[in-house]
């Protein structure tokens, strides 16, 4: 197992290095430049050139990458060109915010989705199954922007139960922060519910139709015991992999939800860095999200192996 983990960490490091190179390389074909982005369209070219020189943004991408990478080796993620502050000063709070939202969304979304999938699988072909499947698909097909605004209008504007934005006052407690995160978390739940529930439902149907489930029934075990001990344990394995991928998305890919709820997460920070061609901030942000993705995937794989004896035994053979 230790060897497996070390191998995965090694591969992850290579992936991260390649990721940072790709970000720098791709940035060369993006339009715009930092100086123009900061000073605006109507600044004189002389001012833009002077600012680019001052920021070092007029150097070749290769030199900028070299500079950034040598800093990284010494633990420095670089300095944001547009904000003139260390990238981590911006990424740290944003990452913390993203984790908070991801945790709240995870706590609401995953149990609900799995429960929905289990009920749909157990009631396969019946009205309950069809309702859950159609509702889940409909919500998944709707853009987050639409579901988010709908939820804001209902729960914040009309009913006045929840705040519109996910921005709490400075020094707010955990309960207040949780309240502010409910609406974006519900929006994400609607987006992810259909997908996770569908995977769970499909696995449930497959497991319920399996020989071991039939044998358990024939042995005379009560249905609840069959489902709990035999069906769920097998049916939830694919769900774990799917949920792991969603955690990465919840932490680093929430540009629309963050913007709509005025929440300063890492997704919108990276998007803005890309728009402004702020390469050190962009690359550091992508790297941080990459680390989150790779870590979550590794943890999910290990969990999968722990829960699935076939994989464990297969790896030792």
């Amino acid at each position: 197992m230790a060897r497996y983990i070390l191998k995965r960490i090694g591969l992850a490091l290579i992936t991260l290095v390649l990721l940072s190179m790709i970000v720098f390389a791709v940035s060369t074909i993006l339009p715009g430049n930092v100086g123009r982005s900061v000073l605006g369209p109507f600044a004189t070219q002389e001012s833009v050139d002077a600012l680019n020189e001052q920021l070092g943004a007029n150097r070749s991408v290769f030199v900028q990458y070299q500079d950034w990478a040598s800093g990284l080796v010494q633990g420095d993620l670089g300095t944001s060109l547009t904000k003139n502050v260390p990238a981590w000063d911006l990424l740290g709070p944003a990452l913390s915010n993203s984790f908070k939202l991801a945790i709240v969304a995870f706590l609401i979304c995953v149990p609900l989705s799995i429960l929905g999938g289990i009920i749909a699988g157990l009631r396969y072909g019946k009205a309950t199954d069809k309702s859950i499947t159609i509702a889940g698909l409909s919500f998944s097909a709707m853009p987050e922007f639409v579901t988010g605004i709908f939820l804001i209008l209902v729960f914040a504007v009309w009913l006045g139960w929840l705040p519109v934005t996910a921005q709490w006052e400075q020094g707010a407690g955990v309960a207040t922060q949780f309240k502010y995160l409910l609406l974006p978390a519900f929006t994400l739940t609607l987006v992810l519910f259909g997908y996770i529930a569908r995977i769970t439902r499909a696995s449930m149907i497959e497991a319920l139709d399996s020989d071991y489930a039939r044998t358990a029934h024939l042995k005379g075990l009560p249905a609840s015991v069959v489902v709990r001990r035999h069906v769920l344990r097998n049916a939830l394995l694919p769900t774990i992999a799917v949920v792991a991928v969603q955690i990465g998305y919840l932490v680093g890919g929430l540009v629309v939800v963050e913007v709509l709820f005025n929440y300063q997460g890492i997704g919108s920070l990276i998007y803005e860095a890309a728009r402004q061609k702020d390469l050190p901030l962009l690359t550091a942000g992508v790297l941080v999200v990459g680390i989150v993705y790779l870590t979550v995937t590794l943890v999910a794989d290990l969990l999968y192996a722990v829960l699935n004896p076939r994989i464990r035994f297969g790896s030792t053979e």
Partner: protein
Amino acid sequence: MLDRETTRRIEQYRRNEAGPIENNLIDELVAGEMDRTEFLRRGAMFGLSAGMLGTLLAYVGEAGAAPLAQTSRGAVKAGGTIKVGLAAPAGPVEPYLLNDGGALAFAGIPGEYLTFTNPQGVCVPWLATSWKPNKDATVWTFQLRKGVKFHNGQTMTSKDVVASMKQYVGNKSSNAGLSPYFDAAGVSAAGPYTVVFKLKSAIGVFPYLLSQTTYQAIIQPASFAAKPGEWVKGGMIGTGPFKLKDYQEKRSAQLVRNDAYWGGKPPLDGVNVTFFAINSALVLALRAGQVDLAMQLSPQEAQPFKGNSKFTYYALPTAAHRQFCMRSDEGVLKDPRVRRAIALTINRPQQLAKIMLGAGQVGNDNPFWRGFQSTDRSIKQRTQDVTLAKELLKAAGAENLKFTLTTWNFLDHADHAASIQAYARDAGITVNLEIMDGSKYYDSEPAGADYASTTPWLNRTATLTEYGARGVPNVYLTRCYMSTGDWNASHYKNTEFDSLAKTYLGAPELAAQRKATKRMAGLLLRDTPVVTDYFISYVTASSSKVKNYVPEGISHVRLAKVSLA
């Protein structure tokens, strides 16, 4: 009947204090060449005191001068913290780099300017109490307000003003639009409260250019001005009614009342600013009561607040506009008859009603907004005439005219471009639309190429570009219309126009300015390098509990007199 004392005072003023410009101004008033409002505007701009303005109006039989500074209306309730929603600053909030609405609106709460262009278009004293030009308006001497304290307790003097101005014009990467008018050597102190500007050429309306419409020109303490980039880190020290307590980049800011404010103690205890990445979130927050006051909204976004008793809707006419520029030097739009024909296809009142929901004023294909005092109101308004447009196209041999209009995905641009396309179709003109991303529209093409000769917004056959509000048309003229202008997207070159523009720029007398703008407007109607079909009102909304708020056309949020019911 005037008493002898008043007459003596005026005569003494004309003899001892007034220069040729002030005496011309008085002559124009006496001759009936300008009304009371215009006289107040001009008088304030040339530094006449409110007392003298009132005396002069009485001299010609008018009522006394109205107070020039902003006054509060209604009962003022002290206390409370207002929640203001601003667009998240896209760039740094350093004065010399200010560029976007969110950043300038935020910087303008703790920061202030030498003068202020008020919503009526009057340039009034602010950190400077008076100013005086020399006889040809090439040297301007400003007297500073005494007793003004920065937020750090330091007293503002000419040293701070000179250092601030030197930063804006001396810094190579500065975004301030002041460097065309004077350089670092051109600003100096002539006493602890006197600053002298020696201009590169005559500017009759120079005080306007030091007001908040040049939003970078915030007066900072000399110690900060000497170190560009340190203003935010140092706590945004200015002279404004509220001082910074806490600032979370892109997230929020807290400001508290400046009890030592020179304009009197502000009624509010403080200001909580929330930054929004998109306006739809801001609108929803206002509707739900999470913010009390929003900065600029589109007319569509502000529509739900109009006529709603829980909210106050504001629409302030401004000089902000879009320029539909047509290449006058080459290509299918080179013939002025073709450009005139295109302009004639547009039904301006209908276009304004549909796109801006009426929040604006019809334009006449020139930058002379009717709110500018220098605008000659007798210029005939261009109206839709499709028959004449077809005749002009036929005469120019361009009956099957096709061209591409390039713009970017911003505000009303796409709808505006589509309306031009639809109106042109009535005259048989095919307009293809090219809607770009902003970073492409305003970048060189390809990236890294020479900017001026390749960027789409200055080089495409036809472009549609946004211009913010100004107190005077100087920037539009010098940069967009004159041959030497670096934003001259139509590539318009007309020596007669250039000469008239120079006359306007250097003329302190209103009559001379109007004469020049009338002739320039005539040339622009004839040549039509740019279609300016509408001017845009500054639209926003607040909760009805916000009292005494007066919007400002550049997006500054002025809260010195605001209170909460």
